């Protein structure tokens, strides 16, 4: 029995899984670090003619680490009337949803934690887990603002879940697979108008891409879709009662998920780690691929945050109207057109 166990612990499977776990555990805080520094601190500051943080580290690059250390020292306040267990559990559920997203994201021909057959379907499923955490946080806080914020978040997340999922179907029709690696390979081998191979799906899925990005903006509750946290009316919404490190967990999950959504969009529409005119089985792509992917992710994140810092907040009824009367019919039409073209050509 003991021999069996030690055999299992040192098996290739266990060792490789442990390495993958360690890498992802490092990457998730790192993604928040990159996005928060580059976009939230610096890009926003430059857009508003400020310098942004300059003190901690060169050009304030260590600011977020300083903030994390500050949050570690803050008191963890649980309000008297709060539903204690649910209150403590909510941020963990939200962060877990982010963690599970990273399981399927490919960054190179052999660089993926686990290339599940259900790939993109799985990613959509675990990303909606965060709605549950947000609703739990809003309810358990025992605060009227938090409750309103949580209910708003639930309404918003279900409304924008649909266009998000339906926009993906166009890509799946073209790629004929749900696996994210499969979708990258489909693009790396795809040619259109005699140009190729390696054209990204955005060439034919422009509408799907636009719908996906708008819906992702709403799923991430970034402005103009940030009514669940609206600081001017709900003073923070569902995370109003959270302090110290538990608040930081929400914050980390927000940016980790933004990074994950940008990578999903870059895999689906921009070709992921592959490059046009390059053989996708080449071994050197394992080294260059992550860089290619990161460039695409940062470009898409830039769009997300650019919109965030530019537009004012929508009203709740405008938000629902936009999803149900424009995005969902457009996504359905996109599916039909893609299907017709797939069968016709």
């Amino acid at each position, binding site marked *: 029995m003991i021999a069996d166990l030690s055999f299992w612990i040192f098996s290739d499977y266990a060792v490789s899984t442990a390495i993958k776990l360690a890498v992802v555990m490092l990457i998730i805080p790192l993604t928040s670090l990159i996005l928060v520094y580059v976009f939230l601190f610096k890009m926003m500051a430059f857009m508003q003619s400020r310098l942004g943080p300059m003190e901690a580290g060169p050009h304030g690059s260590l600011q977020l680490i300083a903030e994390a250390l500050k949050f*570690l020292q803050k008191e963890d306040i649980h309000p008297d009337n709060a539903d204690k267990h649910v209150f403590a559990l909510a941020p963990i559920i939200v962060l877990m949803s982010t963690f599970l997203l990273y399981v399927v994201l490919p960054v190179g021909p052999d660089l993926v934690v686990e290339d599940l057959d259900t790939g993109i379907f799985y990613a959509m499923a675990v990303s909606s887990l965060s709605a549950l955490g947000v609703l739990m946080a809003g309810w358990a806080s*025992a605060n009227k603002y938090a409750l309103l914020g949580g209910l708003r978040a639930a309404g918003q997340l279900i409304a924008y879940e*649909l266009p998000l999922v339906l926009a993906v179907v166009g890509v799946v029709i073209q790629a004929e697979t749900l696996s994210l690696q499969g979708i990258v390979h489909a693009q790396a081998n795809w040619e259109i108008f005699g140009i190729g191979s390696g054209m990204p799906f955005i060439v034919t899925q422009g509408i799907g891409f636009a719908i996906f990005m708008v819906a992702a903006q709403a799923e991430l509750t970034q402005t103009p879709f940030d009514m669940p946290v609206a600081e001017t009316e709900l003073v923070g919404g569902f995370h109003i009662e959270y302090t110290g490190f538990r608040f930081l967990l929400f914050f980390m999950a927000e940016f980790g998920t933004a990074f994950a959504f940008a990578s999903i969009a870059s895999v689906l529409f921009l070709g992921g780690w592959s490059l046009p005119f390059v053989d996708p089985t080449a071994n050197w792509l394992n080294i260059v691929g992550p860089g290619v992917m990161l460039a695409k992710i940062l470009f898409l994140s830039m769009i997300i945050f650019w919109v965030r810092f530019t537009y004012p907040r929508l009203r709740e009824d405008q938000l*629902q109207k936009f999803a149900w009367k424009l995005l969902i019919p457009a996504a*359905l039409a996109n599916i039909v057109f893609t299907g017709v073209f*797939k069968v016709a050509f």
Partner: protein
Amino acid sequence: MSELVRSYLVVALFGVAAVGMVAVMLGLARFLRPTRPTRQKLIAYESGVDPSGSEWVQSQVRYYVFAVLFVVFDVEAVFIFPWAIQLEDYGLFGLVEMGIFIAILALGLGYAWRKGVLRWA
């Protein structure tokens, strides 16, 4: 273990790891942070005004119709994904069939629209 079970075991491990990471960080914070609860600190923060009445107020859940519509379309998505993968093999037959399926759902959405339930009021 089959390949399938193995790959989803990794998913389960990641879920456990997320909880573990949070537990370690919160445990670390426990040694660093002060714990000085006072009565004032533990009442709900509602912009500095003392909360009146129960915190779990009854409010109108306006989007229950949206929730019903959501279930309809989410189930649709479950049917569409397997179809989308196999479309090349089904050819025209699959296309027409899914066209009818989507048309029926679009009709439902159109009906809800016409009935005015998509108004947030």
